[in-house]
């Protein structure tokens, strides 16, 4: 086996069980330092893939939601013939329609109101809880030239960021995340060895008055929180 053949084998490693080819490749690598180096790096990459793709545990809340959904599905929408299903559905629907309509309206009203942040303290509390979760980033700072553009298709509001890098903060990465029931932009910064989180949300999600550019500062659970509004954007910084 020559070097070119070895590289071709390396590219297709794992696709077949050809032991003879594997043995030839192994012999070649033993006598060719360049190809041996390729092999080592390729194995590092292969191990990285296997390790990072290990299964994560299912969040407990998700299992509970699924079990609840199963309980809430009406019995008539279960096993049975198509015509039998239609007949059962028709009977049930006529009987349940008024009650369902009222329940839907009530749920909509509750859901609509639960969506909003009711106070600055609530924003602060949710920000600190999220900051402590140590969320994985969806992008690293060196991969994205225009961070605002990255968020453009992921959030329903235009995202603008305050210029804080001249305060010695170094951007590490970011992601979309949830605070309560609202989607917000999240950026992670470092200052020295300190982690600093910045959450960016739309004023449409808040149900209280805030003065423009006035900073609301308070401590919460060993963290310091700063919240301020600028135009149509609210920022929450946790250090």
């Amino acid at each position, binding site marked *: 086996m020559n070097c070119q053949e070895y590289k071709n084998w390396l590219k297709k490693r794992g*696709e077949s069980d050809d032991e003879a080819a594997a043995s030839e490749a192994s012999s070649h690598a033993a006598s060719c330092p360049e190809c041996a180096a390729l092999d080592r*790096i390729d194995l*590092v*990459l292969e191990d990285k*893939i296997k390790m*990072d793709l290990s299964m994560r*545990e299912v969040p407990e809340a998700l299992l509970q939601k699924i079990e609840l959904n199963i309980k809430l599905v009406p019995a008539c929408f279960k*096993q*049975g013939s198509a015509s039998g299903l239609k007949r059962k559905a028709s009977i049930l629907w006529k009987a349940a329609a008024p009650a369902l309509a009222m329940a839907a309206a009530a749920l909509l009203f509750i859901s609509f109101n639960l969506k909003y942040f009711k106070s600055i303290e609530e924003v602060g509390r949710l920000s600190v809880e999220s900051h402590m979760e140590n969320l994985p980033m*969806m992008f690293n700072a060196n991969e994205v030239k225009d961070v605002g553009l990255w968020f453009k298709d992921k959030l329903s509001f235009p995202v603008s960021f305050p210029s804080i890098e001249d305060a010695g903060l170094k951007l590490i990465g970011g992601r979309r995340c949830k605070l309560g029931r609202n989607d917000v932009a999240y950026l992670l910064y470092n200052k020295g060895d300190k982690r600093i989180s910045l959450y960016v949300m739309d004023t449409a999600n808040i149900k209280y008055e805030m003065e423009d550019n006035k900073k609301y500062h308070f401590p919460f659970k060993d963290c310091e929180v700063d919240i301020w509004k600028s135009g149509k954007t609210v920022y929450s910084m946790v250090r």
Partner: protein
Amino acid sequence: MFFSKKTDEDSFKRTALPHLKFIYNMALRLSGNEYDAEDITQETFYIAFKRFHQLKDEDKCKSWLFSIMRNLFLKEAERRGNYKELNLDEGEYLFNLESVSNYNEKEITEKIDNQELQVILNKIPEKYKSPFLLFYMDNRSYKEIADVLNIPIGTVMSRISRGRDFVKNLLLKNAAKGQSDKVIELKIKRKL
């Protein structure tokens, strides 16, 4: 007149819920974030419970759930319409592997290990990602993957190979950044 809902629930939980971890993890890797993964997983099991009577062979439940989940993911991705995917030149991975093998191996290994694989997976076209994930996360054979995705075995093999090249190539390129511009220089010279 009505079937026993309790029996249906028990049967569904016994058959489908053991695959919850697999479905959640696949949804997580396809969508790239926990929020979408939870939404998609929840919706998958809801639809599956409503259609449970359509599943004739309980041994095929895992594949059936995966198909439901994947269709939901694709529908949502199409609705968002912002799926920007990279292309990979044939031979690019091997080329970059050769270039990188001249660098400090310990440093390169550390830089590979420190990367977030999901960030790379987010850039790969779904048609390569699904077979790639089924191969690495579920240890499926090419034939089983072909059956689940309803594509020929040859297509499965080439898509897994391309997916693997994508991932390894991006891991390498990120690791090589900041080492020197040698990789870029070599690539330009080669194209010339």
